[in-house]
């Protein structure tokens, strides 16, 4: 009994408070979003708001249960949980039901369960477990490979379910790894790759290669400080490219100039690679290989975009980057969402007075686009309050993670913070046109049992770990 009292006393009640406020606001927002005069009671169980109350009650029970379980339990069974959810992901591919193009649901009686929601916290557990292994060193190939395996398994399985949004969430663990010592340059390279990706789609592979080549030449100049050599390289490259493109069009090969440019890139790079190798300029060799790698990446992005992505995915990406503006087509959802939020003004239209959400102009208004209801009915004051509450929660979670004595708890804590952050960034971002429309819920807000429960589990395991931070957990 004394020990249990101890647990309740050492729980972080501030986090629980924010959690309860967010859940409550979410419930009210769902009520407003799907409100209908015939079922005006918020407790009407035939409506989504009634059902959400059941999910909330169950979530609280789950939270309570998680608190009273011994914290060692999570550490000990971390891999087991991970394994179970991976098996569930495989099972759902085989036995799952298809909802909106994604095979990610188990239909159990009247309840639909989405394993991808739960894989988030088990991946966080597994990663925490691995990173807290005795004598763990980040910068070893074995570590990279193991971490890669832990993260890629769910990503691949979720991708196979056609649930791109949930798969992308796993990428946020890079931020956790960064905290644990992953080289900043990897994050930087990731950023460069992302930029090249965007350039390729927004401009064209041709422009991207030209930009990359100019950047590489500048880099060469700064590293070598020999203008003549830089000019030579530039000369070789451009004369080759010119000759190829001119020759190509002269003999009517039908090969596009961008492809000739690629050949020019490869040949001039090879020439320069031989030179660099002979002169033992290994740094330049590294730059060169990154340059070639990015050039190929450009081509593969272009290829994947044009040949592998499905039209609806293409148009969503196009819409995001403003390549196609079609407010009545693909952009319809985002446009209506922006209208809903924008029309809220400073103070909002008032509770239950939102027309955009209530009259179904905004799609998925109780799940992915729940933030619209906040924006429309409570205005700028409401939206900033909600974002501020999330920010407070995230900063609190960093603070809590940092005060852990065990690596396991810290890694897990960062996992929780980063997952919530990613959902917040993408979900709110998409409602205001800053992020692509990938259907992931707003934590604690969006309607749905799977989502609410998985975030509750995610958070409360950490709260339990934090409550017993004084204990020695492992190794």
């Amino acid at each position, binding site marked *: 009994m004394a020990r249990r009292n101890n647990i309740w006393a050492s729980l972080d009640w501030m986090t629980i408070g924010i959690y309860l406020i967010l859940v409550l606001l979410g419930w009210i927002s769902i009520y407003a979003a799907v409100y209908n005069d015939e079922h005006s009671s918020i407790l009407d169980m035939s409506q989504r708001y009634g059902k959400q109350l059941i999910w909330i009650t169950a979530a609280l029970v789950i939270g309570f249960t998680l608190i009273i379980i011994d914290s060692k339990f999570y550490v000990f069974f971390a891999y087991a949980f991970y394994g179970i959810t991976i098996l569930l992901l495989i099972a759902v591919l085989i036995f799952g039901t298809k909802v909106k193009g994604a095979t990610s649901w188990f239909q159990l009686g009247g309840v639909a369960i989405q394993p991808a929601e739960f894989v988030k916290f088990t991946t966080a557990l597994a990663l925490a477990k691995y990173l807290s292994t005795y004598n763990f060193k980040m910068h070893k190939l074995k570590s990279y490979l193991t971490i890669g395996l832990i993260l890629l398994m769910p990503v691949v399985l979720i991708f196979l379910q056609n649930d791109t949004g949930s798969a992308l969430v796993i990428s946020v663990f890079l931020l956790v790894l960064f905290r644990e010592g992953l080289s900043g340059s990897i994050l930087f390279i990731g950023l460069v790759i992302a930029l090249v990706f965007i350039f390729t789609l927004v401009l064209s592979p041709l422009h991207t290669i030209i930009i990359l080549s100019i950047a590489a030449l500048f880099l060469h100049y700064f590293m070598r400080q020999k203008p003549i050599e830089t000019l030579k390289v530039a000369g070789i490259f451009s004369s080759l490219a010119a000759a190829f493109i001119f020759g190509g069009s002269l003999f009517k090969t039908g090969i596009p100039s961008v492809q000739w440019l690629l050949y020019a890139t490869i040949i001039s790079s090879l020439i320069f690679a031989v030179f660099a190798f002979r002169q033992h300029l290994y740094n330049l060799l590294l730059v060169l290989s990154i340059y070639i790698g990015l050039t190929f990446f450009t081509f593969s992005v272009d290829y994947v975009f044009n040949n592998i992505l499905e039209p609806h995915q293409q148009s969503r990406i196009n819409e995001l980057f403003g390549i196609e503006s079609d407010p009545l087509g693909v952009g319809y959802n985002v446009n209506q969402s922006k*209208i809903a939020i924008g029309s809220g003004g400073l103070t909002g239209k008032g509770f239950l007075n939102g027309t955009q959400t209530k009259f179904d*102009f905004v799609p998925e208004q109780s799940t992915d686009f729940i933030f619209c209801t906040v924006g429309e009915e409570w205005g700028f004051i409401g939206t900033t309050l909600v974002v501020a509450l999330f920010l407070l929660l995230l900063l609190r979670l960093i603070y809590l993670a940092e005060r852990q004595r065990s690596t396991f708890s810290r890694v897990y804590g960062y996992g929780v*913070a980063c997952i919530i952050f990613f959902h*917040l960034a993408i979900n709110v971002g998409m409602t205001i046109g800053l992020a692509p429309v990938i259907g992931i819920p707003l934590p604690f807000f969006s309607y749905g049992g799977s989502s609410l429960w998985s975030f509750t589990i995610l958070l409360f395991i950490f709260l339990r770990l934090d409550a017993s931070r004084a204990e020695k957990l492992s190794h």
Partner: protein
Amino acid sequence: MDNYSKRKYLIGAIFILVALVFFVRLFRLQVVNNDYKQYATRNVLRRVVTYPARGLIYDRNGDLLVYNKASYDLLVTPREVSAFDTTAFCEILEIQKEELIAGLDKAKNYSRYKPSVIIKQLSPESYAVLQEKLFRFPGFFVQTRTLREYPEKTAGHVLGYVGEVNRSKIQEDPYYTQGDYIGITGLEKAYEEELRGQKGVNFQLVDVHNRPKGNYRDGKSDTLAVLGKNLVTTLDADLQAYAEYLMDNKKGSVVAIEPATGEVLAFLSAPTYDPSLLVGRARGTNYQKLAQDTLKPIFNRAIRAAYPPGSTFKLFNALIALQENTINLQTQFSCNGPLSRPIRCTHNHISPISVRNAIRESCNPFFWNTFNSIVRKYPRADEGYKVWREHLISCGLSQRLGTELSNELPGNIPEVGYYNHYYGEGHWNGLTIRSMAIGQGELLITPFQLANMAATIANRGYYITPHFVKSVWSIENEPKELNFERHVTTIDPEHFEVVIEGMQAVIEESNTRYYSKLDSIIICGKTGTVQNPHGSDHSVFIAFAPKENPQIAISVYVENGVWGARYAAPIASLIIEKYLNDSIAPRRISIETRMHEANLLNSFQPK
């Protein structure tokens, strides 16, 4: 042990940065930019316009000239359409399947959520059948509009017609939207604002599927439709019909005015047309037909055709000369009959002759002498002419009379400058332009102005702007009498008596009496013959009656009618008789029949 602890700041900074980006974006979306509020309103508000019935038009005795009948437009909301039996549908509507498909495509292109008209003005029969079976065709519904109906089928030129408003009008006047009806000509145009009433607007909230979700602001922004006001015109429907009857198969015009009030009793441009041809779906094709008719039935001769007035104009030369005191009641001029120079006289009468009898005989020499005496009164011919012209201007000539019909022509009395230019300044005198004396030459006067001249003489020196509407009323509003301006001419009342005596003599003592004299009523009139270089001369007649306290003044033009006394005068006398006596004396029935049956349409022979 933990070398990377400082990275917490970077991660925290990323979190804060993203939140800050959101704050800025939300601030711009919600506080700075106001467009989204309008977009949201546009999304959710549907204006449902209620159209009031257009005002009715009555004649002066309360007989209905124009009323409304219901018309049914078929609309479609493409989104709500599901598979239906197109064959049955097309059968009910009596249209081709291609027509239906084209209409549906057009509606879809406009909007999938908003209704658009697919078929205008269904026949009542199609509507009756369709109404019962409409439930089988989801997405389609019928909207009731009104069309004009003309029980008397007369006075098309006065009433005008109603049609869909054009784009430039929509831009100019925000009251109108695409598909609204507007008066295009005639009184429909002149009294558009009174007749149309006020559209009502009901703001409904709709959801994304365009389903009604209740009233916006509990109907506080809604407005009720206000019924159009009714017009009581000055026309006498029976008289109008009678004039049309007499003018059958003739070109020309009849304008009858009540002198004391300026109220137009009958207004006819012949050949006329049935106003109900220019209603509804058939209007386009019917209009084309009428417009291409060589007899020009749409052309409003009474106000658009300016002819020389012929001898009727002599009355004014007499009046002006009396006013200018260049002749008096005793003044006589000699006439050598056919030998007279420079203008011969076609009538056989005693010579010399004074003004009263000169009017009766329509003596050309008397009137060119009279005209010359006016012009010569002043030191220079152009001064004399200017004075003469000013008198005519005061009688409403060479200007629009300002009636409600908008396309009235002003006619023309040439200005001094015209002759100065033509003959050279100082190189012309009253004799140079002597055709002015007998109403030929450059003079252009519309039949409407001529009728107004008759009214002016009947009034002994003034006229009220001739007009077509007595009052405007509606169920909510008391009748509002309209007032029109009284114009006093520069001719003093006492000079009219001798002219009127002369006009009475025209009817009672000249050859005109055979067909135009009435037993019980004194008509005062003057015939005219308008020289027509293209065919038979035109027959003109102006008159008023009775002599004392005149009730009706009239001008009649019969193109190719040869002499005034042959057609115009008998027709005018019949109309006067009909108006004042309500019936035609038995002895004159044969005249009535002959006038009605005369067909002058083929006497037009292009030379």
